[in-house]
């Protein structure tokens, strides 16, 4: 059946992660040639540790951006989730696993509220999550009384521990983050639910007319994203070893950066979660590599900014061509 199968090159060309992947590999090659320390298992493990929290937040962000939404509240929700987990375990005396579950549930609940406001009252996601950003930020500081929660029970920092992989120490948290990326790549690419998310992002009206329950789907996406933010909170807590009310304040924009660098369209309906992983790694590799080269950190910010504008330009131009 020659008509059915597209040829492999065609499929690759239509895959939006090819550009980001090339950029990532080019950056890796550049830093490998210009610094001695870059190309090592230990350094890569470090890069992954550095990007896993924002990367995990960016998974939720990808889901929402695929529906043509945006989430400005994810870093704040993560910070609150982290405080809930640590405070309940340390001050509340809850068993650690129960405290973690409570933190995850709280994050999912904030996602649910975002989703309900977006669907039931038809508010723009930008405004809903901007408001939620402030609400949750304030709640975090009120609930924590601006105190960092310390002396955590071991279960809360378990994911910060490492195991050996080919002579390199890898944290369990990095593994969790990678597995989450694979899980969502599967859900988006291989299940009907994933197809519906893309259809929704293409056009809510088309999706509704084909019988997809768009409101329920949207609420589900925001709730699921919230749950993923909860997992990011656990990764953050396990990495830093504390519950920090100041955490995650620029992570909302950093997660959007990762999504956009990964080739996902801000207009919704196109993109891949694996692209987001690549996007997060691009940011991590530039930060790490420039640091190793002794370039002042402000140049990392400069380059990230240029890359984001470049990525959005590519998206816009490719959309225009397809019209």
């Amino acid at each position, binding site marked *: 059946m020659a008509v059915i199968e597209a040829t492999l090159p065609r499929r690759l060309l239509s895959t939006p992660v090819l550009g980001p992947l090339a950029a990532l590999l080019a950056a890796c090659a550049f830093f490998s040639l210009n610094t001695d320390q870059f190309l090592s298992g230990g350094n890569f493990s470090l890069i992954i540790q550095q990007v896993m929290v924002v990367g995990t937040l960016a998974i939720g962000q990808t889901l929402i951006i695929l529906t043509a939404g945006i989430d400005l509240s994810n870093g704040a929700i993560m910070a609150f989730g982290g405080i809930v987990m640590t405070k309940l375990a340390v001050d509340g005396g809850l068993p650690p696993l129960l405290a973690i579950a409570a933190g995850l549930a709280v994050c999912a609940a904030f996602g649910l509220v975002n989703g309900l406001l977006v669907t039931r009252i038809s508010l723009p996601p930008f405004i809903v999550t901007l408001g939620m950003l402030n609400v949750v930020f304030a709640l975090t500081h009120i609930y924590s009384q601006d105190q960092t929660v310390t002396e955590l029970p071991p279960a809360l920092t378990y994911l910060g521990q490492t195991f050996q992989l080919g002579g390199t120490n890898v944290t369990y948290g990095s593994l969790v983050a990678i597995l989450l990326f694979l899980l969502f790549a599967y859900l988006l690419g291989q299940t*009907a639910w994933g197809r519906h998310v893309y259809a929704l992002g293409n056009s809510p*009206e088309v999706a509704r007319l084909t*019988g997809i329950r768009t409101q329920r789907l949207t609420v589900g996406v925001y709730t699921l994203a919230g749950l993923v933010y909860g997992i990011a909170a656990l990764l953050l807590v396990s990495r830093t070893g504390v519950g920090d009310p100041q955490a995650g304040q620029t992570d909302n924009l950093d997660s959007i950066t990762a999504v956009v660098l990964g080739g996902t369209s801000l207009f919704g309906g196109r993109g891949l979660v694996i692209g987001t992983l690549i996007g997060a790694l691009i940011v991590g590799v530039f930060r790490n590599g420039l640091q190793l080269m002794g370039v002042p950190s402000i140049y990392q910010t400069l380059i990230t900014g240029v890359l984001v504008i470049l990525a959005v330009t590519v998206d816009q131009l490719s959309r225009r061509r397809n019209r």
Partner: protein
Amino acid sequence: MTTPVLQARGLVKRYGQVTALDGADFDLMPGEVLAVIGDNGAGKTSLIKVLTGAVQPDEGELLLDGRPVRFRDPLDARKHGIETVYQDLAVAASLDIATNMFLGRELRKPGPLGRIFRLLDKKRMREESAKHMADLKIGLRSLTQAVETLSGGQRQGVAVARAVAWASHVVVMDEPTAALGVKESGQVLDMIRRVRDRGLPVVLISHNMPHVFEIADRIHVQRLGRRVAQLKPADYGMAEVVAIMTGALQIEQGRSVVADKDAADAIGLS
């Protein structure tokens, strides 16, 4: 006498002060292409929305194969085998053809892979899509290409093929050629013929009189919220039908008579 496939009696639909449907009747016979025409505000859209479950009538009844039915929503109408092709809301642009064909009705792999892991059976969906497209003689290079890479006519082809694939009773097409060029319109009209040849009745809403006259077996003329005439295109000229649509002529005992002399004069019919 044959039972109409889809029938409506005395439909009334009001939106506040506005009466969109004012006792409208509707009959669709097996295996025919029925064109629904009418001026703007005649209640065409409201009629179609009632027939496809998009709105619920305030009064009146619907009969499917002679049995009363009530559609809660478009999904409900689809479950009864009524599929609709919308003018420009047909397909999800970034998804491929096979995905669009099965959107909302995806097939999963047999066994635990599908049941537990919800894994899609992409191969089977592609194969069945290919079959449906071939049935309607829609030629495409690849079913894995995104719909946005197709021409307008091909996109409409995907939408028609999807509707036909799932419709067991009726295919409703709302202005399917409005956004298309001459050649592509011709392709869509050919598709409509093939659908009818397969025995599936088609309701065609169109403003395009030449298209209506080319393809319709019967014409339902909607005016002021009611059906004012049912006629065969062979028995009337295009200008006459337009005159009936605008109220210049009326049908009485099977013949058209001048109802509004000035209007009829204006279009040179009296």
